[in-house]
């Protein structure tokens, strides 16, 4: 793997260990089964390995990793959608197997984000991960004001959805 950057490449295993949370978060959001999740985690890891030679510290490593993870995931999702029929928004299987089930509201929030179109999904993920609008815009390649407008609209939709769900359960 040639290093085209003038900076030393970070160690691959160290990067994966320290930032595996980013890979898991993104892969979880763009897959609907454990098998697909594991496949996507591997695809993202391979792409990180292939791209490490290009890493420049002008970006935070986490920002750089999110870009790769999102690009691989969205591309894979588009390719998968070409083969599969459209699935219902809330058909997602929760990733279980951990001690203690996530609460109903957190699962509902996860499913709502997972049901968004691929790019809106990325936007919402980065927002919930507390990235500032400017950085989100840089990661996605859109303006900061565009990020603000889109997040505002998504928040309105989410509030409405949570309210509907709350009254539906009463």
């Amino acid at each position, binding site marked *: 793997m040639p290093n085209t950057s003038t900076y030393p490449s970070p160690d691959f295993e160290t990067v994966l260990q320290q930032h595996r949370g980013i890979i898991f978060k993104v892969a979880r959001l763009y897959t609907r089964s454990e098998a697909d999740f594991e496949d996507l985690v591997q695809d993202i890891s391979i792409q990180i390995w292939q791209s490490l030679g290009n890493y420049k510290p002008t970006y935070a490593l986490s920002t750089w990793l999110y870009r790769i993870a999102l690009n691989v995931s969205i591309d894979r999702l588009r390719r998968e959608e070409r083969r599969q029929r459209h699935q219902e928004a809330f058909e997602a299987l929760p990733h279980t197997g951990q001690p203690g089930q996530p609460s109903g509201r957190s*699962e509902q*929030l996860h499913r709502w984000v997972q049901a968004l179109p691929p790019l809106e999904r990325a936007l919402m993920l980065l927002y919930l991960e507390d990235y500032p609008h400017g950085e989100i815009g840089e990661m996605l390649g859109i303006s900061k004001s565009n990020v603000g407008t889109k997040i505002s609209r998504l928040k309105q939709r989410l509030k409405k959805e949570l309210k509907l769900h709350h009254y539906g359960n009463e």
Partner: protein
Amino acid sequence: METNDWKALWKSHQAQLDQNTRLNLMITRQMQQQAARCPLRALWAARIAETLVWALLLAGLSTCIATFQGHTAPQISAVVLSLFAVVGISGSAGQLILLGMLQFDGPVVEVQKGLERLRKHRLAITQLLMSSVPFYLAHVFFWFQLLFGIDLFASGDPQWLLAQMVLSVALLPFTFWLIREMGKPTPRYAWIAGLRRSVAGERMEQAVRGVKALKDFKAQ
């Protein structure tokens, strides 16, 4: 529920899910084999194959140009068809260059646009082949000479030849209008979209819509 509550809920949900998810570091020792799972492998293979096919076509046509000495119309036809082959090679080779330049660590919208444009390439090939339709006479003259040894221009009925040439010229504006319509994300007429889908495939159709969706996402 307030925004900060959502963020806190989201983070605790992710932390719970991460507890039992393990990263398989075995892949670090198998990178050579795993690297073959490049998601763009299929695109690379398709473009390389395409470039080779165009190159072979051009080589064949060049041989025919030399062989058809003394038969002006077939020779000119071979030259015309060669021009299309040159355009085809340039297009496929250009796609290979774009593939080589694509970096997954770029801004998401730009990288995805690049990927969808690469997949839309099938439409460009379709448009190229369609643009050769008004030049169908070049095919007729060329193949008659190659397969039957008949110079149709020299031995054909002059009135028939004239009628074919008029038809060729008449086909030019319609063909170029059709090519332009086929390139639009939403063609004006449903039959054009249907034609595009049947000729270039659903995958290309999705790529065309994908590029539009990316442009819409970037716009405020």
